């Protein structure tokens, strides 16, 4: 798997694009877009801004998802903050607002920040989180000092560097947006190309190395894409909030799917929606910074996902818990009823008897009994007492069987004292899958401990039944 093949492919990709640009030129390309917009009746500037920020939203969300899955999401944050001094220095050196140079400065100082983090970790035993915090704040502090210096300088007052703090799409011209769009498209193209390799790298780099994949090189490639997405996002979203663009869509998408192949497009869609929406809102509201609006839009999607997603969401969890509680209460009721009348199946009991058997109030017991009545599991006798119907008896037998099987197993096989097993079995009987019950039966049969009748007798005295007396 070694060899230059993949890197040649990447270089060829770059060469083809460079040739195309040289041939066509940015001006003519933008001219075509302008004509297309005019003939379609669309506002050219708005289209450019939305296309640029939209592509940016997709690419940062997709590459950021990998970072989230690899627990490296804060690296993006550090790189974004570390980029600020580079932006200011690039301006000071060029003495003009050259967008490409500003981003180049951001790239250089962002990468430098990332390298300092890994150096701190490897050479000084500083932990990752501390190293990130250190680099992030120190570089950011330096960046603020340099930016203020630029702005005090008369020539730099209109450099627009403050836009890099919280993001401002309004100041971007078509050429800037073209650079953002092309870079974004390339990030997506490479992620698509290296899909299989990135999956293996993210899930199990050790296994990848044994399969001869060049793990360090792939790691650097993925890191480069992350840094590239971060840097081109800075003008629109700002250094302070750029990390959110990398992190939030992936986190939100994870709630909805268990497959990376679905997570990446979904994350991209969330990134697209929030970037386009945020940019639009900030463009129609005077003085509204773009970055925070985009981030809030993404956060709203994330919050909704967190709550409403079918399996991993909070609401689904609450529903599951309530259903489980309901099932446990129902099964406990059936088992209590069965045990109360075990000796004489045709007798009936009062709600007080049931409540006394479990730690329920009489009102709770009544409520459960009425619900069971509605299900046809119990019925009232003439004198107002309760008795199991045939259906109820059937279901109760299943519950009691599971409970006692498990108790028997604990006593026989796991040598746990008989007076301790009731509570353990109480918790487990409700969740034992049928195949496990069969296994339990088999084991007990093998040991000759399987009783003849369908339900084994209890291993401990039954409170309620004992009180009834025989």
């Amino acid at each position, binding site marked *: 798997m070694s060899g230059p093949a993949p890197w040649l*492919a990447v270089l060829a990709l770059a060469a083809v694009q460079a040739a195309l640009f040289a041939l066509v030129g940015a001006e003519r390309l933008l001219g075509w877009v302008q004509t297309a917009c005019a003939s379609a009746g669309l506002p050219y500037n708005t289209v450019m801004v939305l296309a640029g920020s939209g592509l940016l939203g997709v690419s940062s969300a997709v590459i950021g998802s990998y970072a989230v899955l690899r627990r490296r999401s804060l690296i993006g944050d550090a790189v974004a903050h570390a980029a600020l001094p580079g932006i200011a220095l690039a301006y000071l050196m060029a003495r003009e607002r050259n967008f490409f140079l500003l981003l180049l400065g951001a790239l250089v100082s962002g990468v430098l920040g990332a390298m300092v983090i890994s150096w701190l970790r490897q050479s000084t035993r500083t932990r990752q989180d501390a190293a990130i915090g250190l680099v992030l704040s120190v570089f950011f502090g330096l960046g603020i000092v340099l930016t203020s210096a630029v702005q005090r300088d008369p020539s730099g007052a209109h450099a627009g560097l403050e836009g890099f703090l919280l993001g401002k799409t309004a100041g971007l011209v078509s050429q800037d947006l073209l650079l953002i769009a092309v870079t974004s498209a390339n990030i997506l193209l490479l992620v698509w190309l290296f899909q*299989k390799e990135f999956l293996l790298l993210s899930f199990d780099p050790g296994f*990848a*190395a*044994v*399969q*001869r*994949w060049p793990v360090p090189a792939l790691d650097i490639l993925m890191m480069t894409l992350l840094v590239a997405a971060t840097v081109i996002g800075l003008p629109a979203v700002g250094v302070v909030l750029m990390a959110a663009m990398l992190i939030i869509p992936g986190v939100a998408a994870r709630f909805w*799917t*268990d497959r990376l192949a679905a997570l990446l497009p979904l994350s991209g869609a969330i990134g697209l929606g929030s970037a386009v929406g945020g940019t639009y809102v900030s463009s129609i509201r005077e003085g509204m910074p773009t970055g925070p609006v985009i981030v809030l839009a993404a956060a709203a999607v994330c919050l909704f996902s967190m709550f409403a997603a079918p399996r991993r969401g909070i609401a689904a969890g609450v529903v599951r818990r309530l259903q489980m509680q309901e099932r446990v209460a129902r099964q406990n009721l059936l088992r209590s009823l069965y045990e109360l009348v075990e000796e004489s199946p045709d007798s009936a009991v009062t709600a007080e008897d049931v409540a006394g058997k479990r730690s329920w109030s009489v009102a709770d017991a009544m409520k459960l009994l009425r619900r069971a009545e509605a299900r046809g599991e119990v019925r009232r006798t003439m004198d107002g007492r309760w008795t199991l119907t045939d259906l109820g008896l059937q279901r109760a037998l299943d519950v009691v069987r599971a409970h006692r099987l498990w108790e028997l197993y604990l006593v026989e096989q796991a040598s746990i004292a008989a007076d301790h097993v009731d509570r353990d079995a109480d918790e487990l009987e409700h969740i034992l899958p049928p195949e496990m019950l069969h296994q339990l039966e088999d084991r007990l049969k093998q040991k000759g401990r399987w009783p003849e009748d369908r339900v084994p007798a209890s291993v401990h005295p039954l409170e309620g039944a004992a009180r009834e007396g025989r």
Partner: protein
Amino acid sequence: MTATQEKGIVEDTIASGAPPLEIHDMTVAYQRRPVLWDIDLQLPEGRLIAIIGPNGAGKSTLIKAALGLVPRASGRVEVYGKPIEKQLSLIGYVPQRESVDWDFPVSVLDVVMMGRYGRLGWFRRPGREDRDAAMDCLRKVALQDFAGRQISQLSGGQQQRVFLARALAQEARLYFMDEPFAGVDAATEQAILTILQELRSHGRTVVVVHHSLQTVREYFDHVVLLNMRVVAHGPIEEVFTEENLRNTYGGRLPLLEQAADAVQRRSV
């Protein structure tokens, strides 16, 4: 590399009669602290080989260093007579279960398919053939009904079997398995053992980091007793003796330990 080329290599290596794994004078250090000293090993072909030793003896490190996942301070490792780095296509690997994030968004089949990535090469996506091969491997570990499940929904034993299926999909000649029997249920233990024996019957060599002394004699042919250095290695009946075990487990070697401490202190 095409399949026929690969086969050619395999035939070459068998003809040359070189052992599947040979380690010369390998020393490994973590954070400059030596954990394995001067390892010399030569393992025979077509055997089930256990690496055993107390906690911290360097069992996993031995495998990882041999595979190049952990840097070697010195020494060389050869597979069928050539440096292991050139022979990785002959190697299958089952890492420790805890080494990956089981909440990662992939399905059981996705993971097993990763065993095929090596032969796919750059950029090529797994196709029908790879899918069928992966399903066959899943059937061997009796997880065919779980193919579409997300991996976090499996029990520990099932997760271990997924890793084993992935290694089977590599179709290797020499397997390294890091604690495949750790924390698995009885059914999984039996299933894994059956597969190991099947691999042996096909002439494959399997090196297993093992933690249960009770089963060594029953499961394996060959044993490496390790405690920071190789105490003994060879066929079970010769090497798996009480005296060797006492030498392996009877306390660490205080001298080696002190030396390791000294090396670490000096180099920090």
